[in-house]
Structures are given as C-alpha cells and as structure tokens.
C-alpha cells in the first residue's frame, strides 16, 4: 500500500481527499501547511505528495522547493485554486508530476493517480 501525504490548509478538503484516497487503497497522512508537511516527511518519506500552494505558516511554493531539493525522487502533485494554465505550466517546469485545479472532477483525480502512481481502479 502506497503512502501519500496530502497538504492543504482547508480541513474539509483534507478530510475529503483522505476518504477518497483511502477508498482508492492508499495510506494517507495529512498536513495543514508547508512546515507540518516537512516535519511529516522527515519522520517518514511518503510515496507521493499532494501539495496545496496557498497556505499559512509556510506556503506550498517554499515547501515544494525544499521537498524537491531533499527528496527529488518523491512525486509531487500540486493542488491549486488558480485556474490559469500558467501556474500549472510553471510548477510542471519546476518538477511537479501533476496539477489538480480546484475544483476537480473525480475523473481527473483518477487520471492523475494512474499517471503518477500507476494506480488502477480496484487494483493495488
């Protein structure tokens, strides 16, 4: 079972993603800002990270840079409420594996999981 870390300042979204991802057979850890995320990763390196960009304490951009530097092998999927193609292009250029624009369709999430972690419905 793959372990994923979901980082978002909105507890409802954390709760939602935890429920869906667990339903999709992932072990899910949660963090509500960049600082917390870094602590979690230092305690245990996950197989993948869902990272929101606008957060208090430490935002997703800063956390992204540190995570990329310290754990370049861990795929990071950006979650953003900004719908311009620009953010997505920008973060992909810096090494993000995927980008989920809020609000996202279940189909898009499943496609992302398949592409990033080789997930298949009902499998793993």
């Amino acid at each position, binding site marked *: 079972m793959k372990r994923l870390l979901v980082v978002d300042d*909105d507890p*409802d979204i954390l709760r939602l993603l935890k*429920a*869906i991802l667990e339903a999709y057979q992932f072990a899910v850890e949660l963090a509500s800002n960049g600082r917390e995320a870094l602590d979690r990763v230092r305690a245990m390196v996950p197989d993948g990270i869902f990272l929101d960009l606008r957060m208090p304490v430490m935002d997703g951009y800063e956390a992204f840079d540190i995570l990329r530097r310290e754990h370049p092998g861990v795929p990071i999927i950006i979650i953003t409420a900004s719908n*311009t*193609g*620009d953010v997505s292009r920008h973060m992909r250029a810096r090494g993000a594996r995927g980008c989920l624009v809020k*609000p*996202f369709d279940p189909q898009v999430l499943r496609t992302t999981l398949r592409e990033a972690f080789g997930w298949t419905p009902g499998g793993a």
Partner: protein
Amino acid sequence: MTLRIKLLSYTFCVILMVGGAISLYAIAQGRHYVLTTFQGECHDTAAMMAELVANDVYVLNLLSLRNRLANMRINPTIRYTYIMDADGVVLADGTQANILRDQRLPAALGADLLQREVWLSRIDAGGLTVGGPLWLSDGHRIGSLVVGFSLDRVNRLVHEATHASLYLTLTCLGIGACLAFWVSTRVSRPIAAMVHAARAIGAGDLTTRVHLQRRDELGRLAEAINGMAAGLEQGQAMLHGKIAETQALYEIGQEITAQVVLGPTLQLIVERACSLLQAERCLLALRRGEGQSFAFQASSGTLTEELARLHFRPGEGLSGHVVLTAAPQVVDDYLQDYRESPFLATAAMAGIRSAVAVPLRARGTIIGVLMVTSRVPHQFGSDDQQRLSALADQAAIAIENAQLYEAVRQHAAVLAAEVETRTRELQASNARLKELDRLKSEFVSDVSHELRTPLTSIKGYIDYLLEGIVGELSPPQHDFLTRVQGNIDRLVRLITNLLDLARIEAGQVDTHLVTFAMAEVATEVLETLRPLAVDKGVALGLDIPERGGLVRADRDHLAQVLLNLLHNAVKFTPIGGKVRVRIEARPPGEVLTVVQDTGEGIPAEELARIFDQFYQVNPASAPTRGSGLGLTIAKKLVELYGGHLWVTSQLGQGSTFGFTLPAVGMEANG
C-alpha cells in the same frame, strides 16, 4: 561739329573772302595805275624825242637822227624806235645799219597813225608801242615817230606790288585766324564749362557750380545754371530730410508694433517720440477702461507720482482739450495759454512750458493723448505736430494690439488654469478609475479563488457521494444530488469565466505563444465535442485547407474560443441538424475560421447584444445554461491576438460565427 570749330571756320571763311577780295581789287588797281603812269611817262618821253628829232627830220640829217636815236636807245626801257616821214617811209630805225630805211612798215599802230594828230599807244605781248606826229614849229607835220618800250620794268613793278599785296593779305588772314580762334575760344569755353556743369548736375552732383566772371549773356546763363543747381540741391536736401523722417517713422512703427506687451510698448513709444522730435520729455495718457477719464501711463525718463496720479476728463487742460477737439495742439507757452487749466501747477512743476499734443485714435475713438514738452517756450512748430501725429497713428495701432494681446493673454491664462484644473481632476479620476479597475480585478481574482475552495469541497463530497464511495444512494437521493452537481458545475464555469474575463480586461492574461495550424486545434476540439454531438444527433463536419492556415497565439486560448463556438452551435442545433467548421487562409494574410450551424438562429434585435456580458439568447430553450460570458471571452481572446470575431444569423436558418487571425508563414514556426 562743335560750336567752336563752326565759329572758327565761319569766321575764317569770312576773313578769307573779304581779304581775298580786297587783295584782288588792290592788285588790279595797282596794275592799272602803274600802267597808266608808265604810259604817261612813255608819251612824255616820246613827245620829248619828237621835239628833239623834228628839226633833223626837217633837214633830213639822217646821221644826226641815227645818233639821236642811238642815244635814245641807251634808255633800257626803249626797245626800238623809228622815224617815218609824212608818207610813212622809215627814215631811221636807230640802228647803225638802218636796215629799215626807205621801207614802208605795216602800220604798227594802225593806218591812221599818219593822219592822227595825237599820240597813240598800244600794249601787246611785245611791250608798249607809242606813236605820234612830228611837228615843225610852224605846226606843219613832217613825219611820225614810233617808240617801242619794254614792259619789263612795269611788269616787275606790278609783280612787286602784287607780292606785297599778297603778303599783306596773308598777314591779315593770319591775324584774322588768330582773332577767330580767340573769339571762338572765348565763346565756346564758357559754354563747354556750362555743358559740363549741366551734365554733372544732371548726373546728380548738385554741388557743381559754373565759375564765370562775365557780364554778358553767358555770364547770366551761368548764374541761371548755378541758381538752378542751388535750388535743386535745396530741394533734394529737403526731400532727403523727408525720406529720412519717413524712414525713421516707419522704423519706429515697425519697432513699436513688434511689441505685444502693453507696458514696454508704451515706454517704447514715448522714448521714440522723444528722440524723433528731439524733445526733452514725452508723456502718454490712455483712457481708463470704458469711461471718460484719462490717466498718464508712460513718460520718457520716469513717470512722477504727481503725473501718475493725475486724471483728466475731456476739456480739462491741454490733454483734455486734445481729447475734446480730437485735434492736435501746439502750445507755445503753457503758462500763458493755459492759465485757467486746473493742472497749471502740476505742469509748471513738471517743467512744461511749450508742448505738442496729439490724439491717439483707434477705430474712430480717442484712446489717449501723446505729448512732447519742453521747458523753453516756443519750441515746437507745425512740422513737429505733423511728425508726432504720424507717430501717434502707428502708436495707436500698437497700443490697441497690445491691449488686445493683454486681454487674450488673460483669457488664455484663465483657460489654461481651467484646463489645468480639469486635467488634474481628470488625472485624479483616471488614477482612481485605474485603482478601482485594479481593485476590481484583484477582487474578482480573490473572490474567484475564495469561492473555489469551498466549491471544491462541495463538489468533491457530492461527486464522491454520487460515485457511491460511502454507500449506495436511494434513487431520489441520487436525483437530488445530480441536480446539485449540475448547478455546482455551472457555478464553477461561471467563476472560471469571470476570472478569465477579469484577467483579459486587466491585461493580465498569460499567453504562451506558439505557431500552429488552426486545423489541428479544430480537429481536436471537434473530437472533444463529438460524444456530445452524437448524443444530440447533430452531424459535425470539418473543411480544412490543403496547406497554410498557420497562426501564432496561445493554443489553449484558441481551443477555448473554438470550443465555446462549437459547444454553442451543438447546443442550439436540434436533432438532425449540422454543424460545420471551415478554415481557410485568405489574402491578405488572414486565417478565417467559420462555425456554421443549422440551428434556430438568433433574432436580429439580439445579434448586436450577444457579445455583451451575461447576455444569453433565449436561455429557456437551452438544455443547460451557460455562464453568459463565453462569447464575450471568445471575442476578447480573438482580439487579443489581433483578430476579429463576428456573427451573422437568420432566424430559422441557423447562425454563422466567424473569426479571423493574422496568418504567419512557415518560417515563423516555433
């Protein structure tokens, strides 16, 4: 031929003719006299000889006759002589041989010699022949005597006399010539001098004079010429004076009319008037506003306080008098002529004794008075008055121009201030609008972001409820949640579009420029929409050009435009209808994309509004409601890339949406 030569030759001809005639007459007379005298002498000689030989002829003493004749022939003038008897027979011929003895000679003096009792004489080439009778004392004629005289001596005498006469004549001619020369010189020289002078005067040298000390007509003529030259010189000097004055006036006029500001204009006028009239002081008064009061505004030197304070009305003092009569005034002695003036004391203090004052007239009204003054009485004449009047004419124009300029300038300043205030207000309001615009964009962006976050949760939970992740739903639950989901999706679209529009309007849209074929994007978009079209029973078609149709833009943006147009077309086309996309490259350098449907069409009155924000055509007929922003965004995006989007439609026949984009060549790829 000059007068001198004419005079000389005429005089000489007259002298020559008169001298020649006198000379010829004298020669003829001299010759006649000499011959007559000689003839007389010869007669006397012959008569004396006849007395001497008469006795010998009587006694016929031939020897004595011969001797006597020989003796006679000692006289060199006697060439020959012979004596004839009463019958004309020669008795002796005076030669030793006496060869003519007894010969009857042809009558040398004619046949009547022998009969005539007086002495005859004849002159021929040979000389003078004298012949006459020989008488006895009793008066009996016994023969004749013929004597031939040589004319050599006479001829010599005549020659000498002729020569003398000729010499005399020549001398006279010489003297005459000299006289003629002198006379001609005396007459022609002054004439030449006068001609020279007249020419010089004609050429403009009016100082030329003829120096001739004569009392005759030539002398008077010279005086007349000198008088004329003097007159011309004086006239020319006057003319030059006038020209210089006119020139000075003109220059002053130019100078003062070149000024536009009133103060310096007035100062310049008084300074120039002062120098033009060589006056001590010049004053200038102007009407105050529109009223009847005048005040001194400028003075050469400084305007004293007394003068500056002084106001006068028409009729008061000298200046008032000028205003009242509208005529120039020359004052010889102010203290005498203006004893009644209310300004006598001021004038006396200001040192005004004599003056010229002229009105300043502009467009028929008196706008002021220009005055020059002197401390000395009787300083100005009518000449000064004329000059000052001429200057005043120019000055009045300049003053009026300056006053107009002043008015215009004040008006312009008011306008400029107004414009500046308005501009500042506009700038402020513009800045405020910009700020508001920025705040609006920021607000929209923030709101959109903040809305998305809760929407993500709502949409997520509903989506996964509907997927049955947390358990099966009853059919009504499923139905309700599906309706919620549809509205949530619409809300998301609305927010997304709002944010897009805000970005485009704020110029904050991010563009990722690439060169691509419009046909490629069209194909992709068409494929995306195919499931929807199949569901609705609408046929999709694509006409693409063989080559070309390349544009440079953000691919995603154009896909969004095309998706919007095609989605609308499919949405509003009923079952069995057709939606066609046509792309063509057309000159000059445009790529045209047309989306044509066979839908219900758009009413004409709504066509103009369909690009407005939130405007929706007949929303009730649409199966799903859009945001009302799609076309607005599409139009703005096309315009962002230099293109233009339009629509044509006919109710019941369908609609055609078209847009153009600038075409790029293959080489611009990348």
